[in-house]
């Protein structure tokens, strides 16, 4: 909807009070013409004629069409505009833009904060799956690719001519180029990433709640768990929760590790029975979280986003401390599998690319995030800096955990998809990390649920809250998915890589590349190298998804 702007110049006041401005009346008569011979000009000549033009031109195009809208250099600056009510008072326009503008540093921080998700916990595992060297190379390469795709997404609304795209997000751009199909498919893939994140959250929340409870229980009853878990000795204990027998040799380990499915040998049998990571805790969480999901508005939870930042910073500190205490254990075996180490180049690398696709994913809201940047011309630079910082954070955490993982007693292959699982529940620093993350997730989970609800209900029913039962049904479905995953397949690495590759296929690789190529073609600027590059991007996206199934 085009705002009824009819601004005006210099010292003279101008009238277009919103209530009296009616587009249908061509005979708007300016105040100076209907009073008696008033020597004082209330409206300057330039103001009056510009008003007449704007009024007339607005009749010639559709309301959202910006072809004949006055450009910024024609409209006077906000300081020169007055709004005058027919009742006689006049006041200055506070600023043409209601949204506040942030300096670059805040925008960069907002992007970093939004992108930093729980995928950070899976990066060391991802690097292990791909091999140390290959992992680092893939992280850098994927980061750059996704940065480019994000840049394409960011400038896609501006390449659309004649239409006012100032409040469009990327799904609107898809709808413009691909019609209903584009709208629905971008919505679907966006939902995949959101619901994938919510399932991961449920699994992780169960995990953290379990470990927190276990820590408190063990501390209170002075139970020592170290014999029942396979791990290093010493104060900085690292454990291997599910050790596999070594594939290469005769080496066997006799372990009796705590089997969480209940067949335990410990004395506190009833505690393990009622406090089980996969059997009971996912259900306890329902009591806490399902009501929170049914709230109308999520603005209460939006206040807690600072917890996410604190968690990440604490994790970085934790990783640094552990690395210092454990020291580096790196040996470079390029292609061969050894007992304790993994090769530098492994065929399982698509698992890392899948994880990274979700780790670097922000394409569905980057346009909105960048809108509040004060100096819009720096958008590309700020986006690049944000991606660089995110990449460095992931790299730091991934490399340090991988390098510091004590390989001679343990196997590098033990690195868990959630690297905190490699530390026993008695570790205090890790306990603090788990608690922070638990609180953070409890507050972000309803926010994610709200986003899913708004988008799905909005698209299907046109109303964000059609009725309590609709919303409850949706929430039960989402929570159910989370509980099922937490019970039967709590491997967050797999959930992340599959949902990442799926939503990345559409929203990172295919749609942005197609949109970019089509807009270039319409302007007649599409060249062969560019087209080839973008087609390769689409193929990479497809290969990424297929790789998740085959590797």
């Amino acid at each position, binding site marked *: 909807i085009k705002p009824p702007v009819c601004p005006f110049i210099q010292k003279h006041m101008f009238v277009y009070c919103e209530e009296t401005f009616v587009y249908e009346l061509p*005979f708007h008569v300016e105040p100076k013409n209907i009073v008696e011979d008033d020597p004082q000009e209330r409206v300057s000549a330039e103001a*009056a004629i510009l008003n007449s033009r704007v*009024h007339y031109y607005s*009749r*010639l195009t559709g309301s959202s069409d910006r*072809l004949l809208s006055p450009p910024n250099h*024609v409209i006077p600056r906000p300081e020169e505009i007055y709004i005058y009510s027919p009742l006689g008072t006049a006041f200055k326009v506070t600023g043409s833009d209601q949204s506040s503008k942030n300096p670059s540093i805040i925008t960069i921080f907002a992007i970093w904060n939004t992108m930093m998700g729980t995928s950070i916990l899976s990066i060391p595992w991802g690097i292990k799956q791909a091999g140390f060297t290959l992992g680092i190379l893939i992280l850098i390469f994927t980061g750059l690719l996704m940065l480019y795709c994000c840049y394409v997404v960011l400038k896609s609304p501006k390449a659309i001519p004649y239409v006012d795209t100032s409040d469009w997000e990327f799904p609107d751009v898809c709808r413009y180029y691909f019609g209903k199909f584009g709208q629905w498919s971008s919505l679907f893939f966006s939902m995949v990433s959101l619901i994938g994140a919510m399932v991961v959250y449920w699994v992780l929340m169960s995990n953290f709640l379990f470990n927190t409870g276990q820590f408190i229980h063990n501390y209170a009853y002075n139970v020592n768990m170290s014999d029942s878990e396979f791990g290093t000795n010493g104060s900085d204990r690292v454990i291997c929760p599910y050790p596999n027998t070594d594939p290469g040799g005769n080496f066997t380990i006799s372990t009796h590790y705590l089997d969480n499915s209940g067949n335990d040998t410990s004395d506190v049998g009833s505690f393990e029975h009622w406090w089980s990571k996969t059997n009971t805790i996912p259900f306890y969480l329902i009591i806490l979280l399902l009501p929170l999901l049914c709230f109308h508005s999520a603005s209460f939870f939006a206040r807690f986003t600072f917890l996410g930042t604190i968690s990440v910073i604490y994790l970085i500190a934790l990783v640094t401390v552990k690395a210092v205490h454990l020291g580096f254990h790196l040996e470079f075996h390029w292609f061969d599998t050894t007992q304790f180490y993994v090769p530098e180049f492994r065929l399982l690398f698509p698992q890392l690319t899948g994880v990274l696709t979700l780790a670097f994913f922000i394409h569905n809201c980057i346009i909105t995030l960048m809108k509040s940047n004060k100096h819009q011309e720096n958008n590309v630079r700020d986006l690049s800096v944000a991606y660089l910082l995110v990449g460095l954070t992931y790299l730091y955490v991934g490399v340090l955990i991988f390098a510091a993982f004590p390989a001679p007693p343990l196997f590098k292959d033990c690195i868990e998809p959630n690297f905190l699982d490699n530390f026993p529940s008695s570790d205090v620093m890790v306990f603090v990390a788990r608690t922070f993350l638990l609180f953070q997730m409890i507050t972000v989970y309803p926010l994610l649920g709200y986003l899913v609800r708004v988008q799905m209900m909005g698209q299907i029913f046109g109303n964000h809250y059609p009725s309590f039962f609709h919303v409850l049904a949706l929430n039960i479905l989402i929570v159910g998915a989370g509980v099922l995953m937490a019970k039967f397949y709590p491997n967050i690495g797999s959930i992340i890589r599959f949902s990442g590759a799926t939503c990345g296929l559409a929203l990172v690789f295919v749609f942005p590349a197609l949109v970019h190529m089509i807009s270039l073609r319409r*302007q*007649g600027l599409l060249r062969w190298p560019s087209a080839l590059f973008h087609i390769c991007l689409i193929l990479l996206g497809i290969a990424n998804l297929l790789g998740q199934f085959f590797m």
Partner: protein
Amino acid sequence: MFVLLMGKSGSGKTSMRSIIFANYIARDTRRLGATIDVEHSHVRFLGNLVLNLWDCGGQDTFMENYFTSQRDNIFRNVEVLIYVFDVESRELEKDMHYYQSCLEAILQNSPDAKVFCLVHKMDLVQEDQRDLIFKEREEDLKRLSRPLACTCFRTSIWDETLYKAWSSIVYQLIPNVQQLETNLRNFAQIIEADEVLLFERATFLVISHYQCKEQRDAHRFEKISNIIKQFKLSCSKLAASFQSMEVRNSNFAAFIDVFTSNTYVMVIMSDPSIPSAATLINIRNARKHFEKLERVDGPKHSLHMRMR
């Protein structure tokens, strides 16, 4: 006979036509790339002149070939060529090249055509540089156009220059305009009007006017034009057509009415004591006289042109 509105794709021809002729631009019908066919507009003005829009010089070689093969068709029977240059264009050489090809075609097919060059989008140039840049372009264009004579205007849809340029163009197309003006002055003095305006029917561009005293608002012609065009747009939504209007208050009375087959007249009387009926009778009588004036001239300059 045709009026060709030509220029590079994106130079502003569609917007210009929409504003001058009060055509609604629907977003869907607007193309996103270069036109490869002439846009027949069915806009008639000054009798039966038809306005055709044509994109000149896209990146498409296919379009170029089409242009050269259809040249004779496009440039035949052209009364006026209006060529639009985008002042911000980065490809000055190319623009001049295409302009020259058009001129060659005009010389071959319609050598009597009048040529106008509009240097458009001048609002994008800084105010203090506008005159300078326009002078440069005007010199180049005049030089390139020889032996044809071209008249140059600088225009922008965001100031009065567009309206004035088109008013000048239309003024030069009226065959016996000086005679019209003398008669108009006589008419105005006889009926004791403050001001009398003569508008072209389709565009409501002021062809000629008479005023007996200084008026304060220099932009009044464009404003009236805009108001009436908006009113016409509203009327057309109801499938009605605008014929005449009277506006009156204690200070003045204004009458807008059909005048001749190509024109409208607006009479402003500041003596409220003169009854409307008197003025309307005067206008009706004058109408017959002016119509005779229009028909006096020979077929070459006739405003009733053959349609294609």
